C-alpha cells in the first residue's frame, strides 16, 4: 500500500522533571492505513500520543507535527479534534450515569442558544451507535453496558467528531475475545472508509491481523518502522527483537544465592475482576518460591501480576478467588491482610503513595504500621522502642532524612521506597512480594534497593519481585515467571533468561500456552 502521508511527527522530544520520556521520536503514518505502535511498559507510547492529541500542548515539547503536510501547533484536545484527530484512552472516559446519547455529545452538545435539542441528539446518537454495531437505545445509561460495548460507545463518540485520524490506546486490553474480534473488524471497516487508525497494543497477534505497518518504540526512541505487507514477512519474533534490548542503565550487585526448601506454593489460582466478575484476571496460575530465592514475575501492563500478588495477600483484590496457597508445605488461608501477615507474607505495593504509605505521618509511624503488635504490651505502644526500631532502619537502609520524625510525604521517591521496605522487613515475613520496587527511583537508590533485596534473600527469605524492567529481573532474580492475560506463560532460570525469550512468553497467545 502506498499513499500520501497523513501524519508526520518529526524529532519529538518531551522531558519531564528528571526524565526524558521521548527523545527525537519520528513517526510517519500514511493516509488510510492502520498503524500499530509497539513497545514495553514505559517506552513512551502513550506520551507520544498525548503529544499528538494536544494533551501536552505545543511548547511543552520539541519537534514538529505535520498533518497532511501542514504543521500543527495544538494547544489542547479541542484543537486537535478540530483537525480530525481523536484519541481514545486506555481508561474509558464515559460518565457512568449519563445516557449513551449524552455521553456521545458531551462537550459537543447538539443545541441551539444553549438549549439542548434532544430529538437531534437521540437521532444522531442512534445513527452513530449503529455505525459501530451497537443496537442499544441511546437513552441507556452508560453504566449498564459491559466494557466491550462502552469501548464501542467511545468510538461512536469519536465518529461524532468527524474523525480522520483515530488513536486507540490498548483498545482490547479489557475486552474478551468476542468483543476484541468485533472491535478489530470495526477497525477494518474504518480503513475501508478511509479513516486512518493508530493502534497501541501489546497483543502481537492482533497487530499481525489488523495492522499495515508497525513502529517500535523503546526507551523513548523510535527503533524502526516495519511494513507488514512488504516483500519480507514480519514474524512476531522480529517485533519482539525490536521491543526488547533495552540498554542496561543500572548495574546490579553480584549475588550468590543459597536456596533452601520451598516456602510458598500457589496452585491453580484464579481471580475475577472486582467490578466485572465475568472477566478472568488471573487464570489458573501456579508458582512457587524457595527460601533464599529471588523469583521474578514478568509481564506487560494488564498481565495480572499485581492482581495475582494482591489477591494472595489477604484477598486485597478481586472477587471469585479460587485455588490454594501452601506455606512450608501446609495449606493456609489468607482471607484478609492480617491473616496473610500472620502467615509471614508481606506485599510492598507498586503505588507507594496511594497504597503504601501514610504520607502525612512520620517515618517512625510508617515503619511500625504493620507490626504495632510487636511494639506494644496490653495494647499500649512502647514509643521509645518504636523510635529505636525506626532509627535502626533509617541507618541500615540509609534513608536520607534529618530524623525518624520527618514526615514521609517530604522524602524523595527512593527514600519513601526504603520506608516501605523497612515497614515490611520489620514485620519479619518469610515471603516478601515486592511490586515494582524501583519504579520512579534514581539509579543510585536502585542499586541500594537491589542490595537490600539480596540481603533479604541471604537471610533466608523467599522474595518475589514484580517488575516491568526486564534487565532488572534478569539482573536480580534467580528464576523468572512470565505472565500474559492472567496466565503464567513461561518459567525461565536465570542462566537461560534473555529479554527476547521473556518477551516471547510475555506476549504469548493463550492458544500457544502449554499447560
Amino acid at each position: 500500500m502506498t499513499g500520501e502521508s497523513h501524519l508526520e511527527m518529526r524529532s519529538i522530544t518531551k522531558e519531564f522533571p528528571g526524565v526524558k520520556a521521548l527523545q527525537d521520536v519520528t513517526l510517519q503514518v500514511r493516509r488510510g492505513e492502520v498503524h500499530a505502535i509497539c513497545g514495553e511498559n514505559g517506552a513512551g507510547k502513550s506520551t507520544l500520543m498525548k503529544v499528538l492529541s494536544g494533551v501536552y500542548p505545543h511548547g511543552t515539547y520539541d519537534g514538529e507535527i505535520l498533518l497532511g503536510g501542514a504543521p500543527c501547533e495544538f494547544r489542547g484536545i479541542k484543537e486537535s479534534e478540530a483537525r480530525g484527530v481523536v484519541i481514545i484512552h486506555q481508561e474509558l472516559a464515559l460518565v457512568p450515569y449519563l445516557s449513551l446519547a449524552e455521553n456521545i455529545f458531551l462537550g459537543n452538545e447538539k443545541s441551539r442558544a444553549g438549549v439542548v435539542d434532544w430529538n437531534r441528539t437521540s437521532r444522531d446518537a442512534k445513527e452513530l451507535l449503529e455505525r459501530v454495531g451497537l443496537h442499544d437505545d441511546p437513552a441507556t445509561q452508560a453504566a449498564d453496558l459491559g466494557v466491550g460495548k462502552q469501548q464501542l460507545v467511545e468510538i461512536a463518540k469519536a465518529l461524532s467528531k468527524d474523525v480522520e485520524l483515530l488513536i486507540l490506546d490498548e483498545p482490547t486490553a479489557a475486552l474478551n475475545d468476542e468483543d476484541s474480534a468485533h472491535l478489530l473488524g470495526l477497525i477494518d471497516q474504518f480503513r475501508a472508509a478511509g479513516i486512518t487508525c493508530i493502534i497501541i497494543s501489546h497483543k502481537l497477534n492482533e497487530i499481525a491481523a489488523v495492522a499495515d505497518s508497525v513502529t517500535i518504540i523503546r526507551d523513548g526512541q523510535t527503533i524502526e518502522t516495519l511494513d507488514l505487507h512488504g516483500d519480507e514477512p514480519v514474524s512476531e519474533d522480529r517485533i519482539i527483537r525490536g521491543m526488547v534490548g533495552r540498554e542496561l542503565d543500572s548495574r546490579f550487585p553480584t549475588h550468590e544465592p543459597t536456596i533452601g526448601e520451598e516456602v510458598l506454593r500457589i496452585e491453580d489460582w484464579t481471580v475475577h475482576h472486582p467490578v466485572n466478575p465475568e472477566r478472568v484476571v488471573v487464570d489458573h496460575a501456579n508458582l512457587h518460591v524457595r527460601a533464599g530465592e529471588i523469583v521474578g514475575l514478568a509481564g506487560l501492563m494488564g498481565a495480572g501480576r499485581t492482581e495475582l500478588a494482591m489477591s494472595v495477600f489477604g484477598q486485597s483484590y478481586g472477587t471469585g478467588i479460587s485455588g490454594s496457597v501452601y506455606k512450608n508445605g501446609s495449606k493456609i488461608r489468607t482471607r484478609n491482610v492480617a491473616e496473610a501477615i500472620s502467615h509471614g507474607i508481606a506485599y510492598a505495593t507498586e503505588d507507594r503513595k496511594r497504597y503504601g504509605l501514610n504520607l502525612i505521618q512520620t517515618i517512625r509511624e510508617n515503619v511500625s504500621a504493620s507490626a504495632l503488635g510487636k511494639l506494644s504490651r496490653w495494647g499500649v505502644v512502647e514509643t521509645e522502642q518504636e523510635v529505636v526500631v525506626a532509627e535502626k532502619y533509617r541507618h541500615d537502609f540509609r534513608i536520607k532524612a534529618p530524623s525518624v520524625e520527618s514526615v514521609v510525604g517530604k522524602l524523595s521517591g527512593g527514600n519513601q521506597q526504603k520506608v516501605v521496605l523497612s515497614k515490611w522487613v520489620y514485620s519479619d515475613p518469610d515471603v516478601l512480594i515486592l511490586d515494582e520496587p524501583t519504579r520512579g527511583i534514581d539509579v543510585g537508590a536502585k542499586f541500594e534497593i537491589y542490595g537490600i533485596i539480596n540481603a533479604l534473600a541471604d537471610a533466608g527469605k523467599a522474595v518475589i519481585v514484580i517488575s516491568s524492567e526486564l534487565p532488572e529481573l534478569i539482573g536480580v532474580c534467580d528464576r523468572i515467571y512470565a505472565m500474559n492475560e492472567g496466565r503464567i506463560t513461561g518459567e525461565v532460570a536465570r542462566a537461560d533468561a534473555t529479554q527476547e525469550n521473556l518477551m516471547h512468553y510475555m506476549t504469548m497467545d493463550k492458544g500457544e500456552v502449554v499447560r
Partner: protein
Amino acid sequence: MTAVSEYLGRNVRQYGIVGALIVIVLLFQVLTDGRLLYPNNIASLIQQNAYVMILAIGMVMVIVAGHIDLSVGSVVAFVGGLCAIMLTDWELPWILAVVLSLGIGALVGMWQGFWIAYVGIPAFIVTLAGMLIFRGLAIVLVGTTVAGLPSSFNAISNGSLPNWLGFIGDADVVTLCIGAVGIVAFAVTQWRSRAAARRHELAVEPMSAFVIKLVVASVLIAVVTYWLSLSAGGTPIVLLIVGALIIGYTFVLNRTVFGRHIYAVGGNRHAAVLSGVNSRRVDFGIFVNMGVLAAVAAIVTTSRAGAGVASAGVNYELDAIAACFIGGTAVTGGVGRISGAMIGALIMGVLNMGLSIMAVDAAWQQAIKGLVLLLAVAFDLVGKRRSRLA
C-alpha cells in the same frame, strides 16, 4: 539543629493556638474591666463548657478517622432523658443510673457504628439519621421535661469538692493540693519520658526548651488553681471528670495501638488496610466510644439542668465539631490532637462568657463565633500552604 527546628516546626501550630487563646483572654479581660477572670467566672467557665470538651474528645477521634458525627446533640437529649426517668420514675440510686446511662450510650454508638463500619453507609448520613431518630425518641420519652432529680445527682455538675482541709486566707486548701499534685505529676511524667528517650539514646528537645516548658506549664497550673481556690466552691467536680478524660484519652490516642490505628486509617485508609489494620473494627470502636462520651456529656448536662429536657443538646454537635477544627483537626482526616480541641473548646467558651459579660446580644454572639471558626481554619490553611512552599 535541623532536629530542633523540626521539633519547633511540628509544634508551632500547637503553640499558635495557645497564643490565640491567651490573646482572646487578655482582650476580654480588658474589655470586661477585669471581670472575665473573676474566680467564680473561671469555675463556671469550666462548668458551662464541660459538655463541649467531653464531646470534642470523642469528636477528634471521629474526625481524625475521616468521619463526622452529627448526632451527639440528640444523643445527649436521649440519654439524658432516660437517665432522668431512671432517677425519678424508677427511683434508681444515682450511681446505677449513671452506669446504665453509659451503657445506653455504648449501645447507641454500636447502632451507628454498625451501619457505618459494617454496612458501609457514610457517617454523615448515619449520624444525620441518628440526629433525627434520637431527638424524636427523646421527645417521645421525656415529653418536655422530667424534673425533680436528687440533689446528689445534681451535684455532679453544680457541686464542688468539699473543702475538707479548710482555708488559707480565702484559698480552698483542697484545690491548692490538687494543683500541687498536678504540677508534680506533670513534671515527673515529662521527666520520665525524657529520661526514657535518653536511655534509648534518642534525640530529645533541648534542655532549655524542656525547662521553659516545665516552668511555663507549672506557673499556668499554679495561677489557675490559686484563682480557682478563691472561687465560692473551690474545685468543680466536673473539672476532675474532664481532666481525667483529657489525660486518659490523650494516652489512648498517642500511646495505644487503637489510637495509632485511628491516625493510620485517617491518614491513608488503603495503606492502613494493606498494613493489616482492621479498619472496620477501628471505625466501629470510634463510634462506640463517641456514644459513651455522649452519654457522659448527657449526664453532665442533665445534672447541670437538674432535669431531663427533651430539647437539651441542640447544636452540641456543632460546638464540638467547631472546637476540633479551631484546634487544628484536619477536615481530611489523619491529623488532630485532643489538646488542640480542648483549647478550641476553651476559645469558644471564653468568647461566650466574655461576650455575655459585655451583654452582647445572643444573636451577635453566634455570628462572632462563626467568624472565629472561619478565621481559625483559614489561618491554618494559609500557614500550611506557606510551610509547603518553604
